[in-house]
């Protein structure tokens, strides 16, 4: 049985941690675990109520001790939440409602009966899938970093230790010199997951070699890309893996103080990381004299206000120091002169979460996953016009097609794929010809896009690429700190030029003007935000120039999106005068012309709301 003393004692050496782990494993009495995802997405669908109902139900049915209920972090398939997985069989129930709880316990837990209505259905075949790993969304994934989320309670250090946690730290502190750790990371080929893709080992080495007694390690959890939430999900779901990564990094570079920079909009991540820090300190895995080795390293949490530019390294450090989160020129790398002018190692959440894996399984193992210069896996947030959206972890080198069609399940509504935007707001849009591109740092940037933090937005034929470029640009314009001219003034002008193109007032020289401005941004901006802000425009001009030309020269929006350029009209041959559209039109723009006669649409009255187009069953309304 559990010894309460045991729970709170400090671990004072390597053997201590291992016997503690063995003890935890030995005391396990349950033979089934019901995991309820309590990540931000599933919570929004009511997961916490379901979790409580499960606890009550297990008690009422007298199953305590043999069945345990566990609240886990995000498992990526948030769209289908709340998710409930019954382990060890890994039966996945999706969109679970509170009223389903008692029958799940009675049928599935007690009688091993599957509840078909709660299973995931493959849209194309209507086939029901029983196990988590057979759901197409998960099948092609390789969830090395993210997978543990589904098995542990992020607020429980014991859970993490049972799953093999802090083993890497143990190994490092007991048998590796800091130089050996740096070498291991260098050999692994790991590159920063936050955006730049800088070689992690090299960064560690620079920080290690930088002169100075005081050094810092910062974990960047300031994810600002709209739609991207992998860092949040990791920090919420498995905070100890990040802490373990940070302690290893600190040992390697010689730092004694660390910061986790989290945006205020991430309350669960803030809470879970605070709990994790406290528990790790109590256990002697963080703080003074870690595992009795004499190595000290503590972590403070720094809250960010949520400005996109604060993800930029110098701005982030300014913000931790209590100054305005504004970038400064970094001709001297922050690894040498960062926080308070001291050598500072800044790694993002996902990068750090990879560290324990590399140490445990070895650099060669890690190097064996992925392609060319991109090793390991990458977490993407897949959103937009695909059947399955959510967070996915895939090996580097997978193709865009596999991601979109196999994991994502293809484009809904029988529509045609048009583009995928990778790399967040300052990434680029790639066309159909690039679908077989291998997804890695180098291939993406060669194609005019980037890995960025891993946002992936799928677009179909109904998206207008000029409109899309304008959307991302105006996001960046909003988020620019405003310090330097090419970014502040350049983005404003680019947005204004796109505005006029969309209004049908585009001029012949506009494309060239946009290219000039993008280039002056890329080459002349002070920080990385501005430096990549031209991508959405450059990549859409590169791959979808015809759409720009149509807008500018023919005053036409091929996708039928840009209101000033489109016109709804009746295809007389198809219209039988059914009048459905007449009832639907809010502007009284359509008039009845007699039975079996095509209706008439008055362009002057039409407000281009699209209602008639949506309602017509005979394809008699078209837009061009």
């Amino acid at each position, binding site marked *: 049985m559990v010894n309460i003393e045991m729970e709170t004692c400090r671990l004072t050496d390597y053997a201590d941690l291992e016997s503690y782990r063995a003890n935890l494993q030995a005391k396990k009495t349950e033979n089934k675990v019901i995991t309820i995802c309590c990540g931000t997405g599933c919570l929004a669908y009511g997961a916490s109520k379901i979790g409580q109902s499960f606890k009550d139900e297990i008690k009422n049915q007298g199953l305590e001790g043999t069945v345990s209920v566990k609240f886990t972090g995000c498992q990526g398939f948030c769209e289908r939440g709340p998710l409930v997985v019954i382990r060890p069989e890994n039966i996945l129930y999706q969109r679970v409602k509170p009223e389903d709880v008692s029958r799940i316990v009675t049928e599935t837990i007690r009688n091993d009966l599957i509840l078909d209505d709660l299973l995931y259905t493959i849209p194309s075949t209507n086939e029901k899938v029983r196990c988590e790993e057979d759901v197409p969304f998960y099948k092609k994934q390789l969830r090395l970093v993210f997978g543990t989320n589904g098995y542990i309670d992020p607020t429980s250090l014991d859970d993490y230790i049972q799953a093999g946690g802090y083993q890497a730290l143990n190994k490092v502190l007991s048998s590796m010199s800091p130089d050996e750790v740096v070498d291991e990371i260098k050999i692994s080929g790991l590159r920063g997951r936050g955006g730049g893709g800088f070689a992690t080992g090299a960064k560690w080495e620079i920080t290690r070699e930088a002169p100075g007694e005081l050094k810092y390690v910062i974990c960047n959890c300031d994810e600002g890309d709209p739609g991207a939430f992998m860092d949040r999900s990791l920090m919420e779901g498995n905070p100890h893996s990040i802490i373990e990564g940070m302690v290893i990094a600190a040992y390697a570079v010689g730092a004694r103080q660390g910061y986790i920079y989290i945006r205020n909009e991430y309350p669960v991540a803030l809470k879970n990381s605070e709990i994790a820090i406290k528990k790790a300190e109590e256990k002697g895995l963080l703080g003074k004299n870690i595992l009795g080795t004499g190595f000290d390293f503590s972590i403070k949490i720094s809250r960010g206000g949520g400005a996109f530019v604060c993800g930029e390294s110098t701005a982030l450090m300014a913000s931790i120091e209590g100054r305005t989160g504004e970038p400064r020129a970094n001709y001297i790398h922050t690894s040498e002169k960062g926080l308070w002018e001291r050598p500072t190692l800044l790694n993002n959440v996902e990068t750090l979460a990879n560290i324990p894996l590399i140490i445990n399984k070895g650099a060669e193992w890690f190097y064996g996953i992925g392609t060319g210069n991109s090793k390991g896996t990458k977490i993407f947030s897949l959103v937009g016009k695909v059947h399955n959206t959510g967070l996915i972890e895939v090996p580097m080198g997978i193709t865009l097609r596999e991601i979109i069609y196999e994991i994502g399940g293809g484009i809904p509504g029988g529509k045609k794929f048009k583009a995928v935007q990778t790399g967040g707001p300052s990434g680029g849009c790639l066309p159909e010809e690039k679908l077989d591109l291998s997804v890695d740092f180098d291939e993406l940037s060669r194609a005019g896009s980037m890995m960025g933090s891993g946002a992936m937005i799928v677009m179909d034929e109904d998206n207008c690429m000029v409109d899309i470029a304008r959307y991302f640009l105006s996001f960046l314009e909003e988020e620019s700190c*405003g310090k330097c001219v090419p970014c*502040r*003034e350049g983005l404003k*002008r680019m947005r204004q030029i796109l505005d006029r193109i969309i209004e049908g007032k585009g001029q012949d020289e506009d494309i060239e003007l946009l290219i000039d401005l993008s280039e*002056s941004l890329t080459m002349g901006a002070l920080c990385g935000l501005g430096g990549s802000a031209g991508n959405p425009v450059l990549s859409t001009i590169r791959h979808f120039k015809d759409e720009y030309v149509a807008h500018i020269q023919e005053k036409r929006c091929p996708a039928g999106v840009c209101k000033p350029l489109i016109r709804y009209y009746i295809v007389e041959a198809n219209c039988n005068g059914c009048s459905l559209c007449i009832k639907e039109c809010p502007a009284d723009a359509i008039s009845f012309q007699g039975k079996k006669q095509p209706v008439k649409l008055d362009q002057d009255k039409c407000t281009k709301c699209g209602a008639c187009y949506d309602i017509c069953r005979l394809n008699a309304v078209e837009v061009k």
Partner: protein
Amino acid sequence: MVTLTINGREFSGASGQTLLNIAQKAGIDIPTLCHSHAVSDYGACRVCLVEVEKRNRKRLVTACLYPIEEGLKVATDSERVIKVRKTIIELLLARAPDSNDIKELATKYGIEASRFRDVTETSNDNCILCGLCNRVCAEVVGVDAISLVNRGTRREVALPFYDETNDCIACGACSYICPTKAIQMKDTKEIRTMIWPNSKADFKMQQCESCGVHYAPVKQLEYIALKSGLSVSEFNNCPDCRH
């Protein structure tokens, strides 16, 4: 000593100096708008961009911030430099069309009119947000009375919180340093008015007890008294009447 080449000629300087330091000493012309030897460098205007080559990689950097490095090859007017610099000047010209300095710079680079003339201008106060005024105020005058408020395109020079009660001592340093004359200082007999791009404040002038002339802002004299330890009454007379 660090040795480097600029436009093919060899130069050397003490480490820690910037490319701009070296170039200016050598008489090589690099335009600047947000740099002043009186205040710390900031890197905002980007007109001082030059091209550096290191390990066969070329990139554009700001001369005012880039510390010299051994063996660095610098080009101050390569094709890329000129192209990007011109676009930046054009952007500035569209923002501050009435500024003589900007117009001169534009003419020098052969820009007749900004290609952005057709797009509607939102702010036309000639301020290019170079940040010289707030830096001189904080670093030289030592009062930190004005700042660059807001982010992005909404950024502007103003009194903190746009509050009229402020720390300004009406010394006028900001007005003198401003490259586009976007800050005005107007003296009527008893009042000095400071007009910044987005704020404005009046200051009482000290009147000389002997000749009656209004010779300096009261707050400035109080500030000098405070800093120097002199008594305020030392300033009852204007400099002429003190002798």
